[in-house]
């Protein structure tokens, strides 16, 4: 039987939060960083605490120039070694360093967002442990080099990477990246402003068991989407449906700068209740950010709700491998089961973008 989620993540140096929806075992929240009272100050302080655990070599591997365009775009859904990430690999850090790294994330994200990240990472650990992955490739040497060409795929919570672009600051722009297989958190901070766009969440397996309890990293997204679609009447459904198989995300990793024309049913054609459901669904992505940032994103969405679209493709019965998209002036979300043989509901990719402000670009213009 697999260990509890909490004990696993503690072992991995990832600090869990109080997990009301996870198997019962009290979780230890991360130590609060001593800092100013603003969220930006807290995040910066946590980041500086993490930096203080590193020697000069590791620090130089962690921190990129804020204008490093290549590193900014170096994120993917792929595991190592198919995709080589920059920054520090969690498996190459000491327990104390790992804990400090995760404290940065805990400070930057909401409790629910942090838990979602842990669940996604744990799903990858489950993928490794079920024997379908975890083949450690050759070529991992000092400094955290990953499995080299010709090596096996590398799964599991050791194989997530953290990097900063720019120096942590409560006032100047900088960026936190945390990612690995099925996860790319790209958080751009500029004073008290912050955006997670673009970021990728995914899960495989999309459901796994810990001590008899089922964990679904993207379960809320899935359930809320089906609930929203189910609420549509027949006329609304016909508007929402895209009549073609959606094989993948359209605006996934590598699609920076691209935009697509909106499709589906527009918010103006939804009832008040359905609009609330749409906002609640989008909140599964915007709410990964800390409360202040998430609130701003949600206010933007609310202002534009009548111009926000909801599109659907695939099965309409709950439990089916359906694709959906939410698209408004400040948000694009896609959810795409991966149809590559086997049960597509067990392998999900999603993307969150802001066509007006990916990477915080509108805050950074001179």
């Amino acid at each position, binding site marked *: 039987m697999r260990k509890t989620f909490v004990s696993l993540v503690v072992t991995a140096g990832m600090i869990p939060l109080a997990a009301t929806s996870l198997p019962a075992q009290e979780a230890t929240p991360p130590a609060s960083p001593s800092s100013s009272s603003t969220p930006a100050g807290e995040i910066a302080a946590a980041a500086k605490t993490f930096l203080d655990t590193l020697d000069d070599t590791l620090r130089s591997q962690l921190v990129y120039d804020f204008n490093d365009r290549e590193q900014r775009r170096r994120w*993917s*859904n*792929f595991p190592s070694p*198919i*995709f080589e990430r920059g920054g520090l690999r969690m498996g190459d850090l000491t327990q104390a360093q790992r804990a400090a790294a995760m404290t940065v994330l805990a400070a930057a994200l909401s409790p629910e967002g942090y838990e979602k990240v842990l669940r996604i990472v744990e799903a990858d650990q489950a*993928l490794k442990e*079920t*024997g*379908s*992955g975890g*083949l450690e490739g050759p070529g991992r040497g000092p400094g955290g080099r990953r499995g080299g*060409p*010709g*090596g*096996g*795929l590398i799964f599991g919570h050791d194989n997530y990477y953290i990097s900063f672009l720019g120096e942590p600051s409560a006032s100047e722009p900088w960026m936190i990246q945390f990612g690995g297989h099925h996860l790319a958190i790209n958080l751009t901070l500029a004073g008290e402003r912050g955006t997670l766009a673009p970021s990728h969440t995914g899960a*495989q*397996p999309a459901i796994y068991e810990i001590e008899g309890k089922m964990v679904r990293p993207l379960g809320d997204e899935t359930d809320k989407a089906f609930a929203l679609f189910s609420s549509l009447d027949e006329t609304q459904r016909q508007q929402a449906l*895209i*009549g*073609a*198989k*959606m*094989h*993948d995300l*359209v605006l996934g990793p*590598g*699609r920076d700068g*691209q*935009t*697509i*024309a*909106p*499709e589906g049913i527009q918010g103006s054609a939804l009832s008040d209740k359905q609009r609330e459901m749409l906002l609640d669904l989008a909140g599964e992505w915007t709410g990964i950010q800390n409360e202040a940032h998430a609130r701003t994103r949600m206010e933007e969405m609310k202002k534009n709700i009548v111009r926000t679209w909801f599109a659907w493709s695939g099965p309409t019965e709950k439990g089916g491998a359906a694709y959906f998209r939410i698209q408004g002036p400040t948000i694009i979300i896609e959810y795409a089961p*991966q149809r*590559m*043989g*086997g*049960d597509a509901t*067990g*392998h999900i990719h999603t993307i969150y973008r802001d*066509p007006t402000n990916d990477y915080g670009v509108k805050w950074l213009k001179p």
Partner: protein
Amino acid sequence: MVEAVITLLRRLSLLSVLLALTPAGFAHRLDEYLQATLVAIEPDEIRLQINLTPGVAVAENVLAQIDRDQDGAISKNEVAAYAESLKRDFTIRLDERDLELQLTASKFPAPADLRTGRGIIQAEFFVVSGKLASGAHRLTLENRHLPEISVYLFNAARPESGTIQINRQKRNENQSSGEIEFALQPTRSA
């Protein structure tokens, strides 16, 4: 020679590992060539932006189409030849009128990156359509490129011009063909 053998063995090793994984264990696109076409419609021009991503298991097949002399490198001539073959496999019509494509940009990753399954070939074509008249239009596109190994995505880009209104998109089930109904609003005279 020895290095070439070692390189080949490493590639086969990675490929065999990937193919040995059960679908439930690891299901990233291996044996498909994803062709994603974005149709950008503006008052003065129409462009196709095509991203082509071969999965690991089909990368050699795709590379064979590109690296014709099999020297392990993709030359400018080979890029041009492959773009030409792409052009031949696309049919684009505006209001029932066949249109010509002109390659305006392309980016081909190194063969080694294509073999990893994450290399993306990018091609952009200008659609020779002439200036659009105000009013409603219908653009249709058919992609017949390597259907045996391909999956397709077809989408209209969000127009940058406020005078273009995308009214409807239709696709066949596998998205190898699509249709965009759009309108060009007349600009108000000063």
